């Protein structure tokens, strides 16, 4: 692997350790929802650890199954990883994607009912500042990397704004449909009410006349 590889791995590990984490029970599946426009690259870094690092005497065989569902709830990607890895995913459709994480540690190697914690960091777009950033000695390359990151941030913001505009259009259409439906139903109800009222009165009058009560 080499010293550089180990160093970069350590840096990843460390940055991830400062990220958010949540509790994951054994065989439990927890999902994160992300609203993503299409053709966006999503990179996720995760790290699975026992809840009490001091109490874990031996490192059990831990694994994570990552399942990604698209807006139609169909499974778009389902892969198994070790306890520390990254996954990438490109969204084909715009909308809400579900990222689900499930541990699949084998029962006999983990203490019964042991709590695990999952560190998670999900980033969108390429060139995200992250865990791949290699600290090079060359200053111009650092400058280039930073500029590349800025450009990518701007592209991401623009893309999100476009997506927001598309959604607002859909939203406006639904508003108009709701409004016209409310109006239409109110008119239909009033018509039905009036016609039924008239029909009732007419039938009753005819009935009373027929029975010679009036």
């Amino acid at each position, binding site marked *: 692997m080499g010293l550089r590889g*180990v160093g970069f*791995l*350590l*840096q990843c*590990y*460390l940055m991830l*350790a*400062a*990220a*958010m*984490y*949540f*509790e994951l029970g054994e065989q439990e599946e*927890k*999902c*994160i*929802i*992300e*609203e993503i426009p299409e053709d966006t690259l999503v990179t996720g870094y995760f790290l699975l650890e026992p809840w009490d690092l001091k109490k874990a005497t*031996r*490192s059990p065989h831990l694994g994570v199954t990552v399942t990604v569902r698209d807006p139609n709830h169909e499974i778009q990607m389902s892969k198994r990883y070790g306890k520390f890895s990254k996954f990438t995913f490109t969204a084909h459709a715009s909308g809400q994607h579900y990222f689900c994480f499930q541990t699949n540690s084998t029962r006999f190697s983990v203490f019964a009912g042991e709590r695990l*914690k999952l560190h*998670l*960091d*999900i980033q969108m777009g390429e060139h995200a*500042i992250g865990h791949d950033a290699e*600290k090079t000695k060359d*200053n111009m390359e650092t*400058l280039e990397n*930073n*500029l590349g990151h*800025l450009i990518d*941030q*701007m592209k*991401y*913001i623009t893309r*999100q*704004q476009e997506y*927001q505009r598309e*959604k607002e259009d*859909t*939203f406006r259409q*639904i*508003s108009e*449909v*709701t409004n016209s*439906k409310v109006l239409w*139903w*109110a008119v*239909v*109800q009033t018509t*039905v*009410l009036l016609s*039924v009222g008239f*029909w*009732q009165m007419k*039938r*009753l009058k005819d*009935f009373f006349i027929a*029975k010679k009560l009036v």
Partner: protein
Amino acid sequence: MMIVSAELSLLACLILTVSLTLGLGTNQNVEFTFLLPAGRTECFFQTAARNDSMEVEYQVIAGSGLDVGFTLISPSGYRLVSDFRRSDGIHTVDATEDGDYRLCFDNSFSKLSEKMVFFEVIIYSQSSAGGGQDEWADLALTEGMVDYKLEDIRATMDSVYQRLERTRQVQTVLRAFEARDRYLLEDNLWRVSFWSCLNLLVMIAVSATQIYSLRRLFDDTKTVRT
């Protein structure tokens, strides 16, 4: 062999923790949207360093009632924030302690409806100014060859970066607002259609029942008479 290298890397991690955390210094921004099932409490943990500033913002996007309980517990166990059944909230913690902050979302008051909650944690790292100095010190050596002061470029880039980060955060929040409004509207559409249909059916049923009972009344009287 594997166990040894894992232990070694873990030890190296622990040793390097302080130095690397000081050196990284970027503003961390974590945002998640998740489904909170009915009657459950979900907790998220965020690591913070000393004297950083942390901002937590959350919003309920979907779920009847659009409210959730929120608590923020510091690493030493103090309950810093306790919101009961609010639909959105924003809290700032200045001068954070070193350790893991616990954010808990509480949906135990609801038996049936699950809530979709969006939350965002922004950590303003105090060391961001200090961390950048090292890499730029070397660049300053080649400054004599360029007309433009590298210091100006650095300052501009930093400012652009901060502003873009802020734009991104604001955009995320606006996205959450829009998602909430959209869900609400779709619910409204369904509700309007459903209740209108039901209302119509009830009206027709009531009118039919009225006619039928009146006729029965008269038929019975007729039989009694004769």
